[in-house]
């Protein structure tokens, strides 16, 4: 893609200046994002590190910033991750298998299904919160419990799991399927013993990234009622809070010390996300095969 050197002579000065200025503009533009990211991290660490201690990890929330911790919130987030893994991944992979291996693209209902998933991916997260409020919390009478929060986050990240799983399944070459069919395997035998194992690294990577997205979500959880004072360890069918919610709660406090505590909470949240993302990248590099 390199420019062909001008055989007939040098470019005019004006043209070269414009080219240089444009290049500088592009470099500046792409730097802005990194600049803000760097500033954000430095700012959060500067504020949060003094509060980053065992008290934060192990104490329940408290009215005094010195004693306040995020233990119920951290546990809530961990439970939520477990439930998401149990709900979002099977349903997402199942949908992806249906769309890639079974669905006839020409049928109108399968097209509707695909368009529907594309649209769902772009629905604002707060709208999922409304869905949870109307159906799970009030409609089903589940109440403001951890399970309701996990179900809403499942629906929220389902499109992400589906899309990444579909890509992983599509990347398995047809020759593998045909080889298995030629040996007399049924369709499900082909899928469960050949396609799925080959696609698992890609599916796992995508699922971890989707989980990471889910546990950083705040808005939908606000609506299903995670914003309560919870001092005890959460249970699946009990009141709950989660790390981003706890951070929001601390930010909303007028005292400055709670803002610093919020920064410490953010460090914990970012650390969890970093571990998950690093894990996803490691999985991809370690196990992904190129056919």
């Amino acid at each position: 893609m390199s420019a062909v050197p001008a055989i007939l002579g040098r470019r005019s000065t004006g043209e070269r200046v414009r080219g240089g200025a444009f290049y500088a503009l592009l470099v500046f533009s792409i730097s802005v994002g990194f600049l803000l990211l760097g500033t954000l991290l430095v700012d959060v660490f500067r504020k949060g590190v003094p509060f980053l201690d065992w008290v934060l990890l192990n104490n329940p929330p408290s009215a005094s910033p010195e004693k306040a911790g995020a233990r119920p919130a951290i546990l809530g987030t961990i439970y939520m991750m477990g439930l998401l893994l149990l709900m979002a991944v099977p349903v997402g992979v199942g949908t992806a298998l249906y769309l890639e291996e079974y669905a006839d693209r020409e049928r109108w209902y399968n097209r509707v299904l695909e368009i529907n998933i594309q649209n769902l991916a772009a629905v604002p997260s707060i709208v999922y919160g409304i869905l949870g409020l109307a159906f799970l919390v009030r409609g089903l009478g589940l109440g403001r419990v951890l399970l309701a929060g996990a179900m809403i986050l499942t629906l929220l990240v389902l499109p992400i799991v589906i899309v990444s799983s579909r890509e992983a399944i599509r990347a398995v070459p047809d020759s593998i399927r045909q080889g298995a069919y030629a040996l007399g395997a049924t369709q499900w035998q082909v899928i469960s013993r050949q396609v799925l194992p080959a696609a698992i690294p890609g599916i796992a990577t995508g699922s971890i990234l989707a989980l990471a997205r889910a546990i950083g979500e705040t808005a939908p959880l606000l609506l299903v009622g995670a914003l309560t004072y919870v001092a005890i360890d959460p249970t699946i069918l009990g009141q709950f809070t989660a790390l981003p919610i706890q951070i929001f709660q601390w930010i909303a406090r007028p005292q400055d010390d709670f803002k610093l505590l919020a920064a410490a909470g953010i460090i914990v949240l970012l650390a969890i996300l970093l571990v998950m993302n690093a894990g996803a990248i490691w999985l991809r590099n370690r196990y992904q095969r190129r056919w």
Partner: protein
Amino acid sequence: MATREAALGPRPEIRLRAESRRWSEDVVKGVLALCALVSVATTLGIVIALLEPSIEFFSEISAVDFFSGTTWAPLFVPSSFGVLPLLAGTLNVTAVACLVAMPLGLAAAIFLSEYAKPRVRQVLKPSLEVLAGIPTVVFGFFALTFFTPLLQDVGIDVNVFNALSAGIVMGVMLIPTVASISEDAMASVPRELRDGAYALGGSRLQVSTRIVVPAAISGIVASFVLAISRAIGETMIVLIAAGGIAQLTADSREPMQTMTAFIAATGIGDVPTGSIEYKTIFAVGLTLFVITLVMNVFAIRLVRKYREIYE
């Protein structure tokens, strides 16, 4: 042939079909189809959840008052249900965010697609995506506790809660959205178009701006539309940094409430089911959903268009 028949008897009939119907295969397919139905049920659920209370809401408050009223005070006595201040707040923050995200995102896409060496792109593109992976509550914290004071320090007279700071930070968050989709579109512009332009003596600037950008325009527009839709639907940054006062003003330095922030702020409180306050959540939510849905459908069609042309 005759000798063979004599030796082996009549040729056995070979059947390629399975002896019996494989029910377990059908069961598996059914289960997978059920999984796929979950996402359809989600959409239906969203529509029903929004529509039903909204219809009740609009039977109590006229739609004309709702969409043309300039005072939003659902929790006051006497209450007033004009959604315009919330729409204005959303529009204001979205406009600021787009002014940041669109030019910077497009420039970043041009850099990645036309200027960066493949190795540089391989590192820069995922690094930029890190921005999109930071939880929005963190951006809200940053806007409130760092960016707003920064604006005040450089002499911009902003309120502690303001739309400007929230919008700028949101704009930076949206850069990867614009850059990533635009870059995809530019990458699918055929190499021949560039080579032709270079052969005619075009500079890299000319090829980028006059060949690649116009050829990828539907994807670029799609990325813009998607960014707008994201900005409209973003909740936490505005809830934290833009304040909670629904006022009709064009001044971005003032506190504002967006539709999303209103929904969140009202949903946090334990509003009694069936009350008019409860129903406002759904009426505003429906408005938000319809606006973003229209934009998303538009963006998806645009993306499909450039894929059809070049891939």
